[in-house]
């Protein structure tokens, strides 16, 4: 089985497993969608006071929040294992994946599926549909969200790889990822220069929501290239970091465990 068929098979198996209790799947997805809509009320209130900010209106923030929600939903639905890399490295669980013939990182990424992701995808798509003027823009926004998923997954993997150098800091990794997500879902208007550098490099939150919306507001091939570049470069960096980190990993006590 080639790599892509294997990845598809893993994703399909995860989805089937998550949907094995349909009412639970639907309820969790529904709750997450409601959660996103309630959160959006805060932005509505903010723009009710502020009017518009540097040309950004409520519909731009709806697009931003929608793109981030779709990207995050795609991550939790298909690459949910990114969340557990640190935990596996700490408790020796990586052994299970190291003993397999396929890439351990891909195996981990495709090992979890969270049903709430479907709610994120649907609510995000609804927000984008509300805010975008035509189907072509809607389709472009979804494509940009898919690119954003690549940045989210690779950032989470890279952050979790920190435990290879400072063991027992899994909670710090989660906090850092939460920082990244918060930054992703906000318009980066009026940020000081050091913060701007941060969101385009170390915590590349700009590529998840802000850059895609700027692209939709005024299309440029340069920005699209930067977006595609980020979706390619950050996974390579994360995968490289994981490989370097693995050299520091030594457990070897759960090699025969079956999952």
């Amino acid at each position: 089985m080639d790599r892509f068929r294997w990845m598809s098979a893993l994703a399909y198996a995860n989805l089937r497993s998550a949907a094995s209790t349909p009412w639970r799947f639907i309820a969790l997805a529904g709750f997450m969608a409601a959660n996103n809509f309630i959160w959006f009320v805060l932005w509505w209130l903010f723009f009710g006071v502020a009017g518009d900010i540097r040309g950004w209106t409520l519909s731009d923030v709806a697009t931003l929040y929608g793109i981030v929600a779709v990207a995050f939903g795609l991550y939790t639905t298909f690459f949910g294992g990114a969340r557990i890399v640190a935990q596996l490295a700490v408790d020796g669980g990586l052994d299970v994946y190291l003993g397999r013939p396929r890439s351990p990182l891909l195996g981990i990424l495709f090992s979890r599926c969270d049903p709430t992701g479907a709610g994120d995808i649907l609510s995000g798509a609804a927000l984008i549909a509300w805010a975008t003027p035509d189907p072509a823009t809607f389709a472009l926004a979804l494509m940009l969200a898919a690119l954003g998923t690549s940045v989210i997954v690779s950032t989470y993997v890279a952050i979790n790889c920190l435990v290879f150098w400072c063991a027992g800091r899994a909670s710090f990794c989660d906090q850092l990822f939460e920082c990244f997500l918060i930054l992703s879902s906000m318009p980066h208007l009026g940020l000081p220069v050091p913060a701007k550098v941060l969101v385009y490099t170390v915590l590349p939150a700009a590529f998840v929501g802000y850059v895609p919306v700027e692209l939709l507001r005024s299309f440029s091939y340069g920005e699209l290239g930067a977006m595609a570049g980020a979706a390619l470069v950050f996974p390579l960096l994360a995968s490289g970091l994981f490989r370097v980190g693995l050299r520091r990993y030594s457990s070897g006590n759960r090699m025969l465990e079956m999952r």
Partner: protein
Amino acid sequence: MSCVRLGLRETWSERPAIAGSILTYALLLGVWASLWKLVPDAALARLSLRYEQLVWYFALTELVPFSVGHCYRQIESEIQAGGATPYLVRPIGYTALCGMLELGHTAAKLAFIGPAGCALAFLLTGTVPLGAAQVPPLAVLLVGGASIYLGVQIMIGLSTAWFGTARPLFFIVQKLVFVLGGLIVPLSAYPGVLERVAWLTPFPATLYAPASLALEPGFAHVGGMLVLQAFWLALVLAALAGVAGAFERRLMANGEA
């Protein structure tokens, strides 16, 4: 009290997580401060608000959710793993034990994040909206707000016994706390209907009550907020006692989720 002390010690031993919390808090405050800075003064003046007030207001509202954190998770995972049953035979019930432990965690986080948040708000605005006399009531209101939110979260955690998971319920309630509690925009600037709905819930007592001191530091307002908090705290504790009783009865009859 020993449970509270244990909670304090546990939080202190997780210093990297506290550092992460402070970093997240600072980033969030920084981003919102830069957004408020871009709002024209005229727009704020219409609501009798100023940039400095709004930054301090947000610095204080954010303190409560950051101090309480996601404490329902611990209860959820304990119930899912069958860890609550052994507490049935102990002299102090499971809910009381969790509550005291989490109160310790919350107090420790408040003690760390609070000064850092106030320092950052001062750096961003160059002003302090309160006098020394308002600091003790502010501390009481922050602890009171955090206690109400903590009580709500413990009830959400206990709901795992019925639903098998608490996460979806938590997300909804958390967002309701943010919206109806006035996390970013003060309740006084809400549209009329939404403001009236908000005051019917306990959420303004969690976030708006302490943070509104940045907008209105007068002692009449402080007294009003203290009374409001006392009312909702009593109600939430009564509800928590009811849920805890139902939880223990369910545990006795059906076992854990």
